[in-house]
């Protein structure tokens, strides 16, 4: 059965997007890419620390992977647009994950700034994947602005208490025509399976893999969970619910 994940007019076999942050050593990234079978990986752009230069991250990323640079660090749409253009000009391709965060306490994405950045970058030919709160109107606006997918957070970042935004994500899945990729807040493979069962198109997992004592094994666990959730969604869940019977029949009048 072919069930490809289509985003930005590209087709992928894997519905697991991985991140490249927070690993105990960068060389783990290539092993994680392999065990997760992930085909899309996020990375960030930073000013170099001139006193302490490091090796390029690209050396650890398999060549055939789709790079998804993010705009982390951006606090306004102008900054996000700037980072996106630099990433493209430096050879990272035209995919961009927009991430505009203006508060340090909850790390919430700013939807209004994100819409502005998406409008501009989509017009410039970027494949734009914005990170958002699972808000219906923000999602609709991004769809109209030309986003290639939306990436709602599963839970506030770092909460690791399961999918707290479940109902909101399910509304997005129901109403948005572009792919919905659940990002942030997925702590366990079972969380990923849950959102995939609900009909999410893919998941982006970074911390939950990177912070596991065995990231390579955990990456594989997520791959299996996401595949399993996807298959359950395609198969259709079988709900069994008890139906109460009214004491006096509601349709009795038809037989009088």
């Amino acid at each position: 059965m072919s069930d490809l994940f289509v985003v930005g007019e590209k087709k992928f076999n894997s519905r697991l997007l991985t991140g490249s942050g927070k690993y105990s050593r960068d060389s783990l990234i290539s092993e994680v890419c392999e065990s997760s079978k992930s085909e899309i990986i996020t990375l960030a752009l930073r000013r170099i620390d001139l006193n302490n230069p490091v090796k390029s991250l690209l050396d650890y990323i398999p060549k055939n992977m789709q790079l998804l640079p993010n705009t982390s660090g951006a606090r306004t749409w102008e900054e996000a647009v700037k980072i996106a253009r630099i990433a493209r000009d430096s050879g990272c391709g035209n995919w961009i994950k927009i991430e505009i965060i203006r508060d340090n306490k909850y790390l919430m994405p700013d939807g209004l700034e994100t819409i502005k950045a998406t409008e501009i970058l989509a017009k410039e030919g970027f494949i734009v994947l914005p990170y958002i709160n699972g808000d219906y109107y923000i999602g609709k606006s991004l769809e109209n602005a030309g986003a290639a997918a939306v990436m709602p957070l599963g839970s506030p970042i770092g909460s690791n208490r399961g999918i707290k935004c479940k109902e909101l994500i399910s509304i997005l899945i129901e109403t948005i025509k572009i792919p919905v990729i659940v990002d942030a807040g997925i702590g366990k493979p079972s969380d990923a399976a849950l959102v995939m069962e609900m009909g999410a198109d893919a998941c982006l997992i970074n911390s939950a893999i990177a912070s596991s004592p065995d990231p390579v094994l955990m990456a594989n666990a997520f791959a299996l969970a996401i595949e399993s959730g996807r298959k359950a969604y395609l198969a259709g869940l079988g709900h069994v619910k008890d139906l109460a019977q009214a004491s006096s029949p509601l349709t009795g009048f038809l037989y009088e």
Partner: protein
Amino acid sequence: MSSFYNYLSNWDKFDYIKFLQSRTEIDIKQILEKEKINELDFLALLSSKSDLFLEQMAVKSSSITKREFGQTILIFTPLYLSNFCSNGCTYCGFHKKNKIKRGKLTKKEIIDEAIKIRELGIQHILILTGGDRIRSPFEYIRDSIIIMKQFFKSISIEVYALSEEEYLELHRLGVDNLTLYQETYNKSRYEEVHLYGEKRSYEYRLSAPERAAKSGFRSVTLGALLGLDNPVIDFFKASLHTLYIRDNFPGTEVNISLPRLRNSMGNSIKSIELSDKDITKFIIAYRLFIPRSGISLSTRESSKLRNNLLPLGITKMSAQSKTTVGGHSEVKGDEQFEISDKRSVKELHRDLVSMSFQPVYKDWDII
């Protein structure tokens, strides 16, 4: 621009009869276990295989309606401005060639009629005219609405299909709801029963609710005249129409109405009989399909049937309706169809209260 016309054409090749006939009881059982049902599930519930599950469906439909609407029913009444008509709709009493008494209300008569209706306690009014752009031009409808705004809190229109600019203007004047029935969604049947006149254009009428929604109308009420063609297929497509508006125009509330074809004066066609059981099934299946949609049931139906269907999913009812022009003050033109439920607003009110429903006269009033 996508449109419902294009959306509906995706279903052109679908074999409805085969699908409906091949449903099994197991199919129906499985559908009733689902939390949300899709288009094909809904169609399956309209098949004869669901007959054995009507009570179970009714329980579910009733509880969804209670959850979404509570124990409230919106009351409104129609007001006929004119029964001049230049269309040839074979099923309709206003058919151009019917020898009936024709009339059109003057400004003064509109005020008289409005005063009488308001005295009944009615605040939601549904304005109707025959399809005649010469005798009842857009400007006439517009000016009548301006008068009516002084008497009623909410105005719905059921007039010939208008252009987007016209809908925009009426929306700005404060019209809340468009009521427009496609009559039949079967294009060739549509052309058979609409012999001439502006209404003959199937596509212009089909796309009117989209134009109204785009213009900012708060709500639309759609439906098929059940009995003109295969009622199951027509009702299914009318339901898809409400689904399409709901999904593409999130700011517009959708409602469905289930008018059954009745014998009116000059009705020259054979109708397909739709039983009380069928109409009951339609209502409860639709409620499972689109939980938040309004469902309206007109005074064409008997008071007994209306009372019985009330707890199953109905949210709107007309009351003390006259389908004549000037019916509440001085009759100037003959009726469009015969009313079955002849209860006055007061009587309906009393019945609703005795069934533990709250009659609502003002649902919406912009600040």
